[in-house]
């Protein structure tokens, strides 16, 4: 049985009112949703809240899930939207502060021959800072394209954006990444 068939069977169980079916889905997908939420929110505690909210929303919307679709794609779409709502709802961090951080990063010198761990840590930190400098929708659009391989058309449909706006979100995100990571190239 493929993962997709497994998911479809578990969804059918959950829809039929059996929590066990839904528990299988939580156990199977919560790690991936957590990683996605970490990238979106930048904080582990916030990511946990996003995972929780994602599954609760998914449970409520199970009736709308089409059995032929891919459950994980459907779930990630909900997760991105949950994360967007979550970020919008939390106290706003000064954009200026983020800009300054990014500018400071682009100027700071860090040699690629430094210790591997430090180097890897620096990449992650710079990527996260660049992500935080984007609007929640821009961030989601970029992550969906880059990490999950969704097409621009699919992303637009998932996030309620027009194709051009989706493209520009991705362009903006990539440009931020280039500024943030340029000193490490």
């Amino acid at each position, binding site marked *: *049985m493929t993962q997709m068939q*497994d998911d479809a*069977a*578990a969804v*059918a*169980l959950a829809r*039929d*009112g*059996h*929590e*066990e*079916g*839904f*528990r*299988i889905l*939580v*156990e199977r997908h*919560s*790690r991936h949703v*957590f*990683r996605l939420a*970490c*990238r979106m929110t930048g904080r*582990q505690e916030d*990511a*946990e809240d996003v*995972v*929780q909210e994602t*599954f*609760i929303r998914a*449970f*409520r919307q199970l009736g709308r899930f089409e059995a032929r679709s891919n459950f994980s794609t459907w779930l990630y779409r909900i997760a991105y939207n949950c994360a967007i709502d979550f970020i919008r709802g939390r106290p706003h961090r000064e954009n200026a502060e983020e800009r300054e951080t990014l500018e400071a990063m682009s100027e700071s010198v860090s040699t690629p021959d430094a210790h591997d761990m430090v180097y*890897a*840590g620096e*990449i*992650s930190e710079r*990527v*996260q800072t660049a992500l935080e400098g984007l609007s929640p929708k821009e961030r989601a659009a970029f992550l969906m*394209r*880059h990490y999950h391989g969704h*097409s*621009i058309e699919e992303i637009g449909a998932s996030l309620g954006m027009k194709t051009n706006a989706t*493209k520009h979100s*991705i*362009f903006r995100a*990539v*440009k931020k*990444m*280039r500024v943030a*990571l*340029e000193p*490490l*190239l």
Partner: protein
Amino acid sequence: MTPHITDDELILHFYGEAPTDAPRIDQHLAQCVDCHTNWAQLQRTLQMVDSADVAEVPVGFERVMWARIQPQLPQKTARVSWWSPKVWAPVAGLAAVIALAFISGGLWQRTGGGTTPKVNTDVADAKTVRERVLLSALGDHFEQTENLLVEIKNAPEPGGPGGKDVRRVDLSYEQQAARDLIAAGRLYRDTATRNGDMELSSVLEDLERVLVDVAGSPEHMNTQDLKSLRARIEDDSLLFKVRALTTAVREREKTLSTQSAKSVRTL
């Protein structure tokens, strides 16, 4: 030479979002040093993004998350009895087919075959039929689990003397089987727990732990991994427990069959 490729075009090209422009872009990149350098930098940047780590997923995250989610789910859990086919159908679709076969078979016997079936309102008899069907499904589950454990126990050890040979044993088939059994086993366990059958629930939980280990282990195991897995199976006497349960389930099934046959004869 064609005009330079813009940054935006390169981004779309990187993600495969501009297939019709791809030949033109590739041709230009092959001729233009500036654009080629820009393209190489973009590729490196996005490869770095790929390598960016996120937080480690905490151990036991799934269980903790379920404990947080479960109380918040709208209560639409079906309240069905232990023997309701509804409980079992999703994991043992075959059971429903067998149920029909049993039910129609029973009626067929009672009526001597061929004539219009007599409507039987005996609830106890219907319950017996369902119990037999479900015991059959559970017995099959235990037998499949036993087969899997035996296969792992008897899998040839990889590696040669002195650890020079680093060959690994391929357990991908067993892993897939384990994944299928986990889902079904959880449902049986949940149902057994709800029905107060803690002994059955406990064995199913022990089995699940090992099945999760099998499903989550590397596809190609080295000697150490394989030994450790076998030790788990042996330490918990899992094979013994599974065989005992299979026998008990099959005995009960046989008893019910005999009872059922007697009741048919007395009709």
